[in-house]
């Protein structure tokens, strides 16, 4: 039997079992579940096949009966966000899936003798052209002609080749709670409302949460949030109830293109590695996995992603670290600080009485 003394890692920093930081082979077992607990499950969200339909958002809301809100998480007010097709805005208490839409364009240097340089042409065509746009130097060095069969066929899968002077791509990605191996929200929760389930996921227990709000700033991804009128916090449960019935989470069930894949985490990781290799072999150099590495700052995510650009483009932190990694050091500082106070106060009584 372990005793609470083994929890001292948080205070001492002596953390041989990676209770605060680092890879954990069996996070479910470490959370006190018997050895025959179910395998850890997760999401692999492959954004290279996401069509931005938002079925995940709706299926999630239908199943979990979440309130509607605007792109800033405000209830009972809706309006156009102006952020491409994203009117959800962010993950929050009422949106447990959020599809990000990122519009990008790049200049292309076109060999079009019959047309002249399109940039030049367009600049001459009147006020419809933003001055200085499409500066030739943008394309120089980076892009040679892409308007030939070879270049086109090798092109990025999410790139729309427009055939003129600009290439556009429209990235879409369904974000969700990462169900981290080291979950900041769970670690800081003082009531035990946030807990790790037998499936290895991180869930809020609505009957326990007292709305202290500590988990909200503790999440390095900004996932969990408080519902103002309710007072408690809410986030993705990976459909804990559905899992108990042997079903997949609502979002993964709905996803038309299998951009959201649900399964045992180790199988998903293998699938993701293969997918990354495939894309690389097709010349998609910008593909990368996010949250898949178990040595990263959160011990690897239970929900990880294949992205086509840097994480911050999608609103994800480039190098998230669970805040409790530094907790031993903080506790030491707090203890020393407390001792310092005692010392200062006691020594202030020393010396001559006036």
């Amino acid at each position, binding site marked *: 039997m372990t005793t609470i003394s083994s929890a001292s890692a948080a205070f001492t920093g002596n953390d041989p079992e990676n209770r605060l930081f680092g890879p954990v082979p069996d996070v479910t077992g470490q959370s006190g579940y018997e050895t025959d607990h179910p395998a850890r499950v997760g999401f692999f969200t492959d954004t290279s*096949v996401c069509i931005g339909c*938002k079925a995940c958002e709706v299926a999630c809301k239908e199943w979990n009966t979440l309130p509607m809100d605007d792109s800033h998480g405000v209830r009972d007010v809706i309006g156009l*966000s102006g952020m491409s097709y994203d*009117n959800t805005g962010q993950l929050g208490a009422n949106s447990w899936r959020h599809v990000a839409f990122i519009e990008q364009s790049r200049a292309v240097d076109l060999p079009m003798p019959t047309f002249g340089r399109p940039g030049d042409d367009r600049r001459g065509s009147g006020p419809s052209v933003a001055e200085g746009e499409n500066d030739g130097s943008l394309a120089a060095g980076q892009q040679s002609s892409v308007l030939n069969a070879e270049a086109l*066929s090798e092109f990025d899968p999410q790139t729309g080749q427009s055939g003129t002077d600009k290439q556009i791509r429209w990235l879409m990605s369904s974000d969700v709670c990462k169900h981290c191996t080291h979950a900041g929200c769970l670690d800081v929760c003082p009531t035990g409302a946030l807990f790790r389930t037998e499936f290895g996921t991180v869930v809020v227990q609505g009957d326990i949460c007292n709305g202290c709000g500590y988990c909200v700033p503790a999440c390095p991804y900004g996932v969990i949030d408080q519902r103002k009128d309710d007072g408690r916090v809410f986030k993705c449960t990976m459909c804990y109830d559905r899992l108990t019935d042997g079903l997949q989470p609502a979002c993964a069930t709905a996803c*038309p293109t*299998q951009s959201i894949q649900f399964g045992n985490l180790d199988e998903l990781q293998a699938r993701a590695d293969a997918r990354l290799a495939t894309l690389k072999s097709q010349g998609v150099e910008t593909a990368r996995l996010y949250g898949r590495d178990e040595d990263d700052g959160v011990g690897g995510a239970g929900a990880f992603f294949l992205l086509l650009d840097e994480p911050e483009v999608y609103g994800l932190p480039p190098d998230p670290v669970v805040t409790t990694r530094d907790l031993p050091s903080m506790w030491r500082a707090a203890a020393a600080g407390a001792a310092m106070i005692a010392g200062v106060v006691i020594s202030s009584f020393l010396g001559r009485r006036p």
Partner: protein
Amino acid sequence: MAECHPVGFQWVSEAKARGAKIIHVDPRFTRTSAIADLHVPLRMGTDIAFLGGLIRYVLENDLYFKEYVVAYTNAAALVSEEFADAEDLGGLFSGFDPENNTYDESTWQYEPEEPPHSGSDDPAGAAEQDELEDHPEIRKTDKAQAAGSGGPPIAAKPKRDETLQHPRTVFQVLKRHFARYTPEMVAEVCGVEPEAFLQVARWVTENSGRDRTTAWVYSVGWTQHSVGAQYIRTCSILQTLLGNIGRPGGGILALRGHASIQGSTDVPTLYNLLPGYLPMPHAKQHESLDDYCADAAGKAGFWGNKRAYMVSLLKAWWGDAATAENDYAFDHMPRIDGDHSSYQQIKDMIEGKISGYFLVGENPTVGHPNGRMNRFGLANLDWLVVRDLQLIESATFWNESPEIETGELAPETIATEVFFMPAASHAEKEGTFTQTQRLLQWRHKAVDPPGDAKSDLWFFFHLGRILRERLAGSTDPRDRPLLDLTWDYPVHGPDQEPSAEDVLREINGVGPDGRAVSGYLELKDDGSTSCGCWIYSGVYADEVNQSARRRPGREQGQVASEWGWAWPYNRRVLYNRASADPDGKPWSERKKYVWWDEEAGRWTGVDTPDFEATKRPDYVPPEGARAQDAIGGSDPFIMQGDGKAWLYAPAGVVDGPLPTHYEPAESVVENALYKQQANPTIEHINGPWNRENPSLSPVFPFQVTTYRLTEHHTAGGMSRTLPYLSELQPEFFVEVSPELAALRGLVNGEFATLVSTRTAIEAKVLVTERMRPIRLRSGQVVHQIGMPYHWSYSGISTGDSANDLLGIVLDPNTHIQEDKVSTADIRPGRRPRGPELLEFVEGYRRRAGVESGRVGVNGREPVAAEAGEGSQQ
């Protein structure tokens, strides 16, 4: 497709994962473009030029599938010497009647090998029918669809030149017709650079042939044009030349937009059709059943059995009252004699010609172009019945429509009596939907509908019951059809719900033995069989509801034939005989689908062969063979009179035997190919409530297109009322390019006003590089505005209605409106309110030299004083 059919798009995703190339041709960069290998933005309304360019590329570079084209198409047929092409007449084909704006198609015929109609049972009748076909009023009625699901009848077998060298072969005619559709012309018309065009051309042609097939997918982006039917024709020609029809992975797939819109066409609630694409009898053409059947009687192909289908339908409707003596109650059927289509009806309503209107799950004041005109129509009815789930705008027009604010309508002046009858949802009733690939799927009922909500089956059954009770004992002959009607469906439950299965069984048809027939081949023209819709015959074969079959897909092969039931005869790929060569062998191992099994003496394969099972590939019809027996063993296109795919349509398409690029009715560009600017046979509906923006007008300098978003459904009644969908696209917006935004001072996230000769609407602006100006070869820059059309004033997510901006002009073949392209002006800020709005729009009309759009009470007669003012400018 990713936008509007996301779940269907999974198969595209899967194909892509297996190496397929996805090309997206669309003026807008959509969620489909985001996934596609290549997005080709073309100027809206120029697809015929683009596809025509591909056809030219195929022909000029000898990239067509020779064996397929020679054997399975009419490429070798000779066209009459009288035919003159649009290339030679400045964009008009021979036979144009400028008075009626119609064509006489007699000069488009083949050069006959035999006397006309010699194959007919009734040569004189057929000839007369043929002649009547060209009567302007009949042509206006809707001849394209009247020909049914196969091609129209042809008078005679043509002379053929199998070498395709004769200058009057269809092949050579085609080649000449498209000769000017060069990559440079495509650049000039569509604004697609030759490099991009050639890329598409290479990918499409390299992926077609014995071993590979290319599929084309379209939706209303092709149909909702003034030359919509010809868009599809152009693609058909291309696919036929490439041998991509009737083969796995090929075809032209219409992705339809509603759960059972295919069913609503097959079992049509359309004025010009009876179930199974039988034409609605025409007063001038079909005075008797014999007249009605004359054109098809005994002709080659399955239309040769038209009489059996029609008699069985009449038996299904009028039962014992339909006898050989009374032409099987053929005269119980009312007659049409013109265009009675939806938009014509609206005009008639405004003019007070129609008293009552049923809207059954339709919201025309939002979903149809020119909402204002639609609302004026409703305001001039005596009564209106609306059946829907929610109080849609078409039910609340009398006190909430925008015209209340402008003062053009007022509850106090509107006499229309409105009945809102709550409807049952899809989960609260049973029945079949026919999805986009002709697959019928039975829905089981989950729960009872709430309160007064009832199924439409219930409503119409009981309405019919009450009407029949009222008229019982009437001796008026006009009441006979109602009183003779077979209307004895069993009912069940406390609501007295009629049995949908019983109706489906009637649709399937019943044989002389009283048992459900197994398919339309069992139907007879002697009154011994009944069948409500011949193409659906077989859906209740063996007295089993075949549409309710649900063997899980994972337990079946790729065709999954045991899930639901597809017409005809549960065949999943039409004309799949073409997947084998003329000898009945698969074209290639890779593309094996249906083939002739010599040992078994029958056609076999992974799908049900769309061919008579035991007709040998070397079967040659004997002299005097009729109907299907007149189709040869190597003629896969069994609904056509000649069994061939038509590269050239000698009949049946009212605006020309070959597709020709015309500019949209409202265009900012001059037709670069022909003197003829727009389709000469466009159907216009004129009135102060439906003015047209003049083409090339500087007052309306931008092109506008309308479309759907993934997050909403059509006119919004099923999506704007739901919180989870509303929040995803919370208000009406338009998409503009940064260039247009700069040109007009539009700001992302703020309001803009769009103006046409119909009205002005306001919308939030989404500035996006996904919208782009198209630069034509001439140097002209065409700015395009994208406008999703889901919104109106009701529901959770609201806004002005995009369709209010649009006018109504129609494709002459289909009477479908051109709402994929129109013109407008756009300016920053919100629109004027109240009566000022009318003055604002009137100002635009004046400047554009358009007649006044002022109307009188409830939109009725125009205000005389305003009429004509400024029209001389």
